[in-house]
């Protein structure tokens, strides 16, 4: 469950037309960066991929978003199951006010998993995948809020990984972090793409260039250009893209 296809997607907040005729295919086991100036629709588009926008009353979507050939906005879709498979990590780390262990185990427990051995193994595996195990293995019962910002963000990633998603969405995951923590997140993204499909919104052009395989440039709700990252950053086809990535505007 990893390939994402957006077909003629139009999104609205009330009368405000925020995404216009978006057509995009995100292949499995790739990292796709969404870039563009503030208000261009990139975070809105990201949230359409796991229906987080459903929480916004005025939000409407037209068109189709398919994950592995299935329309995620079809009536029979169970949104909770979708969000298990399409996890999301936000800009500001948001660990639960629980222990480190309980944060990662939470998703499993609310799914009904009771097997302690299974939970323990899954928690360890997720923390290892999130490159956090070595730092927290001896303090798993400590409050997650006692961790540094960078560690909290990796804990949030571990929490997402614990429920075995196929796709991970990241909305500016490193923008609130110091450069070293940000670098660790980028390194983690590089490791995770072996097994997951990752879509990341970022304002940091250099980060997009470093971590992603493909980059999508959004502007005023439109998808202006979508290409291999190396192509987009060396020879963009669209003048607007060139002006944005060279800092002429935005």
């Amino acid at each position, binding site marked *: 469950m990893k390939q994402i296809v957006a077909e003629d997607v139009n999104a609205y907040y009330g009368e405000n037309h925020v995404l216009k005729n978006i057509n995009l295919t995100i292949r499995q086991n790739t990292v796709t960066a969404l870039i563009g100036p503030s208000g261009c629709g990139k975070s809105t588009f990201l949230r359409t991929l796991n229906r987080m926008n459903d929480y916004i009353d005025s939000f409407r979507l037209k068109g189709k978003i398919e994950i592995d050939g299935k329309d995620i906005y079809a009536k029979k879709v169970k949104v909770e199951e979708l969000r298990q498979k399409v996890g999301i990590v936000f800009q500001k780390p948001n660990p639960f006010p629980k222990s480190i262990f309980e944060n990662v185990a939470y998703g499993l427990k609310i799914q009904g998993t009771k097997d302690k051995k299974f939970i323990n193994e899954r928690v360890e595996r997720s923390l290892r995948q999130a490159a956090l195990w070595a730092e927290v293995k001896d303090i798993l019962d400590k409050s997650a809020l006692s961790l540094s910002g960078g560690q909290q963000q990796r804990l949030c990633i571990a929490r997402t990984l614990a429920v075995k998603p196929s796709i991970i969405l990241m909305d500016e995951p490193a923008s609130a972090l110091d450069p070293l923590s940000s670098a660790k997140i980028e390194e983690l993204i590089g490791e995770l793409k072996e097994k997951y499909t990752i879509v990341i919104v970022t304002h940091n052009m250099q980060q997009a260039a470093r971590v992603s395989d493909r980059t999508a440039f959004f502007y005023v709700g439109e998808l202006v250009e979508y290409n291999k990252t190396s192509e987009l950053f060396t020879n963009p086809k669209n003048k607007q893209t060139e002006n944005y990535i*060279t800092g002429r505007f935005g």
Partner: protein
Amino acid sequence: MAQVELEIQALKDNLLDMIELVENQVSKCRKVIEKKDVRLAKEVIAGETKVNAQELAIDKDCENIIALYNPVAGDLRFVLATIKISNDLERIADNACSLAKFLKKYVAHIDHKLLDQFDIEKMLQTCTVMLNDMHEALKKEDTKLARKVFDKDQTLNAINRKSVKSASTLLKEHPEDHKIILRLFTIVRNLERIGDLTKNIGEEIVFHIEAQVLKHHKPEQSKS
């Protein structure tokens, strides 16, 4: 204007200055022959220091832009092209300086017919025009003009090929002038080399503006 734009424009201005400087070096060599003016030859020799300093300054500017501004797309291509162009210009200037040193020693005495046999003046004229074209092509971002360098380079290559026969004939007819004839034969090679280096500059200008790589392509493919 964004700071990166200002830096790129300043770098472009410096590169245009360097092309002009090197063009003048080559052009002066032709005037040395035309006017038998040894002072001009000395000017070319002294001017070599300025060209080298210009190359180092451009290298430093490129390094700073890469480190501080992370250029991408057209800006990146321009910086990469500039590094190569300034290196080619420095080597062109080296060749001009070698020629000036020869002319300083021999221009007053050399038989002009020997120079004509090797088409030295024609080669110098062609090289000067090529460099001028590259200056204009870069300034106006005119890739059509940049591509004109490929035909002119062919002209220099043809003269170079002909020089083997010319040297052979002259050595038989004027063995007493063997030293000068061999030096002139080397100078033809130097001028043909200037043509090659200027052709490289044309290729880099096309790369910068069109993102098209012409290196190692046959001449016919480079013209489109």
